Protein backbone atom coordinates (compact mmCIF):
# COMPACT_ATOMS: atom_id res chain seq x y z
CA UNK A 1 0.00 0.00 0.00
CA UNK A 2 3.00 2.27 0.25
CA UNK A 3 3.26 5.23 -2.08
CA UNK A 4 7.02 4.90 -1.80
CA UNK A 5 7.18 1.25 -2.91
CA UNK A 6 6.27 2.21 -6.44
CA UNK A 7 5.21 -0.08 -9.25
CA UNK A 8 4.21 2.36 -11.95
CA UNK A 9 5.62 5.47 -13.64
CA UNK A 10 3.16 7.93 -12.09
CA UNK A 11 3.76 6.79 -8.54
CA UNK A 12 7.50 6.65 -9.20
CA UNK A 13 7.59 10.19 -10.47
CA UNK A 14 5.66 11.44 -7.44
CA UNK A 15 7.84 9.44 -5.06
CA UNK A 16 10.96 11.05 -6.45
CA UNK A 17 9.27 14.42 -6.06
CA UNK A 18 8.68 13.50 -2.43
CA UNK A 19 12.30 12.55 -1.80
CA UNK A 20 13.51 15.81 -3.36
CA UNK A 21 11.09 17.80 -1.23
CA UNK A 22 11.95 15.86 1.90
CA UNK A 23 15.64 16.61 1.51
CA UNK A 24 14.93 20.26 0.76
CA UNK A 25 12.54 20.61 3.67
CA UNK A 26 14.97 18.96 6.06
CA UNK A 27 17.74 21.35 5.05
CA UNK A 28 15.47 24.39 5.39
CA UNK A 29 14.13 23.21 8.71
CA UNK A 30 17.60 22.57 10.09
CA UNK A 31 18.80 25.96 8.89
CA UNK A 32 15.90 27.87 10.45
CA UNK A 33 16.06 25.98 13.72
CA UNK A 34 19.82 26.53 13.93
CA UNK A 35 19.28 30.26 13.45
CA UNK A 36 16.70 30.18 16.19
CA UNK A 37 19.00 28.26 18.53
CA UNK A 38 21.80 30.72 17.86
CA UNK A 39 19.65 33.62 19.01
CA UNK A 40 19.53 31.99 22.43
CA UNK A 41 22.98 30.44 22.66
CA UNK A 42 24.73 33.50 21.22
CA UNK A 43 22.50 36.33 22.44
CA UNK A 44 22.76 39.48 20.41
CA UNK A 45 24.28 37.63 17.46
CA UNK A 46 22.09 39.54 15.04
CA UNK A 47 22.55 42.96 16.57
CA UNK A 48 24.77 44.12 13.74
CA UNK A 49 22.66 42.51 11.03
CA UNK A 50 20.71 45.09 9.02
CA UNK A 51 16.95 44.63 9.32
CA UNK A 52 16.65 44.25 5.54
CA UNK A 53 18.77 41.11 5.65
CA UNK A 54 16.17 39.35 7.70
CA UNK A 55 13.20 40.64 5.75
CA UNK A 56 14.50 40.74 2.19
CA UNK A 57 16.95 37.91 2.55
CA UNK A 58 14.96 35.57 4.76
CA UNK A 59 11.45 36.64 3.90
CA UNK A 60 11.68 37.15 0.14
CA UNK A 61 14.88 35.90 -1.47
CA UNK A 62 15.06 32.64 0.45
CA UNK A 63 11.56 31.40 -0.41
CA UNK A 64 11.92 32.68 -3.99
CA UNK A 65 15.07 30.63 -4.51
CA UNK A 66 13.40 27.55 -3.11
CA UNK A 67 9.93 27.87 -4.55
CA UNK A 68 10.52 29.01 -8.11
CA UNK A 69 12.36 25.88 -9.24
CA UNK A 70 10.04 23.69 -7.16
CA UNK A 71 6.91 25.12 -8.71
CA UNK A 72 8.27 24.88 -12.25
CA UNK A 73 9.47 21.33 -11.70
CA UNK A 74 6.11 20.40 -10.18
CA UNK A 75 4.13 21.87 -13.07
CA UNK A 76 6.37 20.11 -15.55
CA UNK A 77 6.11 16.76 -13.84
CA UNK A 78 2.37 17.19 -13.25
CA UNK A 79 1.87 17.88 -16.93
CA UNK A 80 3.36 14.51 -17.84
CA UNK A 81 1.01 12.73 -15.46
CA UNK A 82 -2.16 14.06 -17.05
CA UNK A 83 -3.99 11.68 -19.36
CA UNK A 84 -3.09 12.37 -22.96
CA UNK A 85 -6.40 11.35 -24.48
CA UNK A 86 -4.46 9.14 -26.89
CA UNK A 87 -7.11 6.99 -28.65
CA UNK A 88 -4.70 4.07 -28.74
CA UNK A 89 -4.79 3.77 -24.98
CA UNK A 90 -7.20 1.14 -23.67
CA UNK A 91 -10.25 2.52 -21.92
CA UNK A 92 -11.96 1.21 -18.83
CA UNK A 93 -15.09 2.78 -17.37
CA UNK A 94 -15.12 2.76 -13.59
CA UNK A 95 -18.32 3.17 -11.62
CA UNK A 96 -18.17 3.58 -7.87
CA UNK A 97 -21.15 3.05 -5.62
CA UNK A 98 -21.67 2.40 -1.94
CA UNK A 99 -19.63 0.20 -1.48
CA UNK A 100 -18.40 -1.44 -4.63
CA UNK A 101 -16.33 -0.77 -7.74
CA UNK A 102 -17.44 -1.90 -11.19
CA UNK A 103 -15.05 -1.94 -14.11
CA UNK A 104 -16.28 -2.05 -17.71
CA UNK A 105 -13.80 -2.92 -20.45
CA UNK A 106 -15.05 -1.05 -23.47
CA UNK A 107 -12.50 -2.25 -25.99
CA UNK A 108 -12.72 -5.96 -25.22
CA UNK A 109 -12.98 -8.08 -28.34
CA UNK A 110 -16.51 -9.37 -28.63
CA UNK A 111 -18.23 -6.57 -26.73
CA UNK A 112 -17.83 -4.85 -23.42
CA UNK A 113 -17.23 -7.01 -20.36
CA UNK A 114 -17.17 -6.15 -16.70
CA UNK A 115 -15.66 -7.11 -13.38
CA UNK A 116 -16.34 -6.12 -9.81
CA UNK A 117 -13.77 -4.96 -7.29
CA UNK A 118 -10.90 -6.28 -9.39
CA UNK A 119 -9.46 -4.25 -12.22
CA UNK A 120 -7.52 -6.25 -14.78
CA UNK A 121 -4.86 -4.44 -16.74
CA UNK A 122 -2.01 -5.43 -18.96
CA UNK A 123 1.40 -4.89 -17.38
CA UNK A 124 3.53 -2.34 -19.17
CA UNK A 125 0.53 -0.86 -21.00
CA UNK A 126 -1.15 2.38 -19.94
CA UNK A 127 -4.89 2.31 -19.44
CA UNK A 128 -7.24 5.26 -19.22
CA UNK A 129 -9.91 5.07 -16.54
CA UNK A 130 -13.11 7.07 -16.91
CA UNK A 131 -14.44 7.28 -13.40
CA UNK A 132 -17.80 8.24 -12.02
CA UNK A 133 -20.10 7.45 -9.15
CA UNK A 134 -23.78 6.69 -8.92
CA UNK A 135 -24.31 7.87 -5.36
CA UNK A 136 -21.86 9.75 -3.12
CA UNK A 137 -18.31 10.89 -3.78
CA UNK A 138 -15.65 8.19 -3.67
CA UNK A 139 -12.01 8.31 -4.65
CA UNK A 140 -10.07 5.79 -6.70
CA UNK A 141 -6.62 5.16 -5.32
CA UNK A 142 -3.95 2.55 -5.97
CA UNK A 143 -1.05 3.91 -3.90
CA UNK A 144 1.69 1.91 -5.58
CA UNK A 145 0.63 2.90 -9.09
CA UNK A 146 -0.60 6.51 -9.15
CA UNK A 147 -2.23 9.37 -7.33
CA UNK A 148 -5.91 9.33 -6.55
CA UNK A 149 -8.86 10.85 -8.32
CA UNK A 150 -12.41 11.38 -7.09
CA UNK A 151 -15.44 9.55 -8.38
CA UNK A 152 -18.15 12.19 -8.42
CA UNK A 153 -21.80 11.63 -9.33
CA UNK A 154 -22.66 13.58 -12.46
CA UNK A 155 -19.03 13.98 -13.50
CA UNK A 156 -16.49 11.80 -15.22
CA UNK A 157 -12.91 12.07 -14.05
CA UNK A 158 -9.99 10.58 -15.88
CA UNK A 159 -6.93 8.82 -14.58
CA UNK A 160 -4.13 7.18 -16.52
CA UNK A 161 -2.71 4.09 -14.88
CA UNK A 162 0.22 1.86 -15.73
CA UNK A 163 1.85 -0.99 -13.85
CA UNK A 164 5.40 -1.82 -14.86
CA UNK A 165 5.31 -5.48 -13.89
CA UNK A 166 2.64 -8.13 -13.41
CA UNK A 167 1.27 -8.43 -9.91
CA UNK A 168 -1.62 -7.60 -7.64
CA UNK A 169 -1.84 -4.06 -6.34
CA UNK A 170 -4.27 -3.06 -3.62
CA UNK A 171 -6.58 -0.14 -4.14
CA UNK A 172 -9.04 1.59 -1.89
CA UNK A 173 -11.62 4.31 -1.65
CA UNK A 174 -9.84 7.38 -0.31
CA UNK A 175 -12.78 9.76 0.07
CA UNK A 176 -14.95 9.12 3.10
CA UNK A 177 -18.17 7.60 1.74
CA UNK A 178 -20.22 6.35 4.65
CA UNK A 179 -20.39 3.50 7.12
CA UNK A 180 -18.63 0.90 4.99
CA UNK A 181 -16.01 3.29 3.64
CA UNK A 182 -13.27 1.01 4.89
CA UNK A 183 -14.64 -2.05 3.10
CA UNK A 184 -14.62 -0.35 -0.28
CA UNK A 185 -11.34 -1.87 -1.34
CA UNK A 186 -10.38 -3.37 -4.65
CA UNK A 187 -7.43 -4.94 -6.40
CA UNK A 188 -5.61 -4.12 -9.60
CA UNK A 189 -4.28 -7.22 -11.26
CA UNK A 190 -1.63 -6.58 -13.87
CA UNK A 191 -1.17 -9.51 -16.26
CA UNK A 192 1.26 -10.47 -18.97
CA UNK A 193 -0.15 -9.81 -22.44
CA UNK A 194 -1.34 -13.39 -23.10
CA UNK A 195 -2.78 -13.96 -19.65
CA UNK A 196 -4.55 -10.61 -19.85
CA UNK A 197 -6.50 -11.57 -22.94
CA UNK A 198 -7.54 -14.82 -21.31
CA UNK A 199 -8.76 -13.08 -18.19
CA UNK A 200 -10.72 -10.49 -20.14
CA UNK A 201 -12.18 -13.19 -22.31
CA UNK A 202 -13.50 -14.95 -19.24
CA UNK A 203 -15.36 -11.92 -17.88
CA UNK A 204 -19.15 -11.62 -18.08
CA UNK A 205 -20.65 -9.14 -20.53
CA UNK A 206 -21.35 -5.67 -19.28
CA UNK A 207 -24.90 -4.86 -18.29
CA UNK A 208 -26.10 -1.73 -20.05
CA UNK A 209 -26.76 0.36 -16.95
CA UNK A 210 -23.10 0.60 -16.01
CA UNK A 211 -21.81 0.73 -19.54
CA UNK A 212 -20.81 4.27 -20.35
CA UNK A 213 -20.58 6.85 -17.59
CA UNK A 214 -22.84 9.80 -18.13
CA UNK A 215 -22.34 13.40 -17.09
CA UNK A 216 -20.00 16.25 -17.79
CA UNK A 217 -16.26 16.01 -17.35
Amino acid at each position, binding site marked *: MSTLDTAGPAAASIASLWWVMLIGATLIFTFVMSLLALTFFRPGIGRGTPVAWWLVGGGLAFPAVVLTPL*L*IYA*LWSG*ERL*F*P*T*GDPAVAQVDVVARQWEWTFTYRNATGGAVRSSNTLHIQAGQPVQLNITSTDVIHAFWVPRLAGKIDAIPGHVT*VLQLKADTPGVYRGLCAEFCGVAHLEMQFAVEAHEAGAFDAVIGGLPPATPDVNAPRG*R*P
Partner: protein
Amino acid sequence: MTSLRNQAFLFMALGFTVWALAFSVLYGVQGTGCELGWHRQPVGPLSLLRWLLILIWAAHMAALGWVYWRCRAALAVTAAKAMPEAFLWRASMALSITAAVATVWIGLALLVPSICVV
Protein backbone atom coordinates in the same frame (compact mmCIF):
# COMPACT_ATOMS: atom_id res chain seq x y z
CA MET B 1 -5.99 66.51 0.40
CA THR B 2 -9.10 64.92 1.91
CA SER B 3 -9.05 62.36 -0.85
CA LEU B 4 -5.51 61.40 0.08
CA ARG B 5 -6.76 60.96 3.63
CA ASN B 6 -9.89 58.97 2.86
CA GLN B 7 -8.52 56.87 0.04
CA ALA B 8 -5.45 55.70 1.92
CA PHE B 9 -7.25 52.81 3.51
CA LEU B 10 -9.02 51.89 0.30
CA PHE B 11 -5.77 51.63 -1.61
CA MET B 12 -4.37 49.28 0.98
CA ALA B 13 -6.92 46.76 -0.18
CA LEU B 14 -6.97 47.79 -3.82
CA GLY B 15 -3.73 46.17 -5.03
CA PHE B 16 -4.67 42.72 -3.88
CA THR B 17 -8.28 43.21 -4.88
CA VAL B 18 -6.98 43.50 -8.43
CA TRP B 19 -4.99 40.33 -7.83
CA ALA B 20 -8.08 38.56 -6.51
CA LEU B 21 -10.05 39.79 -9.49
CA ALA B 22 -7.37 38.53 -11.87
CA PHE B 23 -7.42 35.22 -10.10
CA SER B 24 -11.18 34.78 -10.14
CA VAL B 25 -11.65 36.01 -13.69
CA LEU B 26 -8.85 33.79 -14.99
CA TYR B 27 -10.29 30.78 -13.20
CA GLY B 28 -13.84 31.57 -14.26
CA VAL B 29 -13.01 32.20 -17.91
CA GLN B 30 -10.83 29.11 -18.02
CA GLY B 31 -13.70 26.94 -16.74
CA THR B 32 -16.27 28.54 -19.00
CA GLY B 33 -13.92 28.41 -22.00
CA CYS B 34 -13.30 24.69 -21.52
CA GLU B 35 -17.04 24.13 -21.25
CA LEU B 36 -17.71 26.05 -24.47
CA GLY B 37 -14.77 24.59 -26.38
CA TRP B 38 -12.81 27.81 -26.85
CA HIS B 39 -9.62 25.83 -26.33
CA ARG B 40 -10.26 24.05 -29.62
CA GLN B 41 -10.42 27.27 -31.67
CA PRO B 42 -6.93 28.16 -32.81
CA VAL B 43 -6.07 31.83 -33.24
CA GLY B 44 -2.58 32.03 -34.65
CA PRO B 45 -0.17 29.89 -32.68
CA LEU B 46 -2.37 29.60 -29.57
CA SER B 47 -5.96 28.74 -28.83
CA LEU B 48 -8.63 31.39 -28.42
CA LEU B 49 -8.94 30.49 -24.74
CA ARG B 50 -5.24 30.92 -24.04
CA TRP B 51 -5.18 34.29 -25.81
CA LEU B 52 -8.11 35.35 -23.71
CA LEU B 53 -6.41 34.32 -20.50
CA ILE B 54 -3.21 36.12 -21.45
CA LEU B 55 -5.20 39.23 -22.27
CA ILE B 56 -7.02 39.14 -18.94
CA TRP B 57 -3.75 38.65 -17.14
CA ALA B 58 -2.12 41.57 -18.93
CA ALA B 59 -5.08 43.86 -18.25
CA HIS B 60 -4.82 43.21 -14.55
CA MET B 61 -1.08 43.80 -14.62
CA ALA B 62 -1.78 47.17 -16.20
CA ALA B 63 -4.35 47.96 -13.52
CA LEU B 64 -1.79 47.14 -10.87
CA GLY B 65 0.64 49.49 -12.56
CA TRP B 66 -1.93 52.25 -12.20
CA VAL B 67 -2.51 51.43 -8.52
CA TYR B 68 1.22 51.53 -7.89
CA TRP B 69 1.56 54.86 -9.63
CA ARG B 70 -1.30 56.38 -7.61
CA CYS B 71 0.17 55.16 -4.32
CA ARG B 72 3.57 56.46 -5.22
CA ALA B 73 2.25 59.91 -6.02
CA ALA B 74 0.13 60.04 -2.88
CA LEU B 75 3.03 58.86 -0.77
CA ALA B 76 5.19 61.67 -2.08
CA VAL B 77 2.61 64.28 -1.10
CA THR B 78 1.69 62.85 2.30
CA ALA B 79 5.26 62.06 3.31
CA ALA B 80 6.37 65.58 2.44
CA LYS B 81 3.72 66.95 4.81
CA ALA B 82 4.48 64.30 7.47
CA MET B 83 0.82 63.28 7.48
CA PRO B 84 -0.08 60.08 9.38
CA GLU B 85 -1.60 58.78 6.15
CA ALA B 86 1.89 58.47 4.70
CA PHE B 87 2.20 55.17 6.52
CA LEU B 88 -0.84 53.77 4.78
CA TRP B 89 0.31 55.00 1.40
CA ARG B 90 3.70 53.44 1.92
CA ALA B 91 2.05 50.17 2.89
CA SER B 92 -0.31 50.47 -0.08
CA MET B 93 2.60 51.00 -2.44
CA ALA B 94 4.39 47.96 -1.04
CA LEU B 95 1.16 45.99 -1.36
CA SER B 96 0.68 47.02 -4.98
CA ILE B 97 4.18 45.74 -5.76
CA THR B 98 3.50 42.56 -3.83
CA ALA B 99 0.22 42.09 -5.65
CA ALA B 100 1.97 42.57 -9.00
CA VAL B 101 4.56 39.95 -8.08
CA ALA B 102 1.78 37.61 -6.97
CA THR B 103 0.01 38.17 -10.29
CA VAL B 104 3.19 37.34 -12.20
CA TRP B 105 3.56 34.29 -10.00
CA ILE B 106 0.10 32.90 -10.71
CA GLY B 107 0.64 33.90 -14.34
CA LEU B 108 3.18 31.07 -14.48
CA ALA B 109 0.16 28.82 -14.73
CA LEU B 110 -0.59 30.22 -18.19
CA LEU B 111 2.46 28.36 -19.44
CA VAL B 112 0.93 25.00 -18.56
CA PRO B 113 0.14 23.14 -21.81
CA SER B 114 -2.98 21.15 -20.86
CA ILE B 115 -5.59 23.84 -20.66
CA CYS B 116 -8.67 21.64 -20.38
CA VAL B 117 -9.39 18.04 -19.45
CA VAL B 118 -9.18 15.82 -22.54
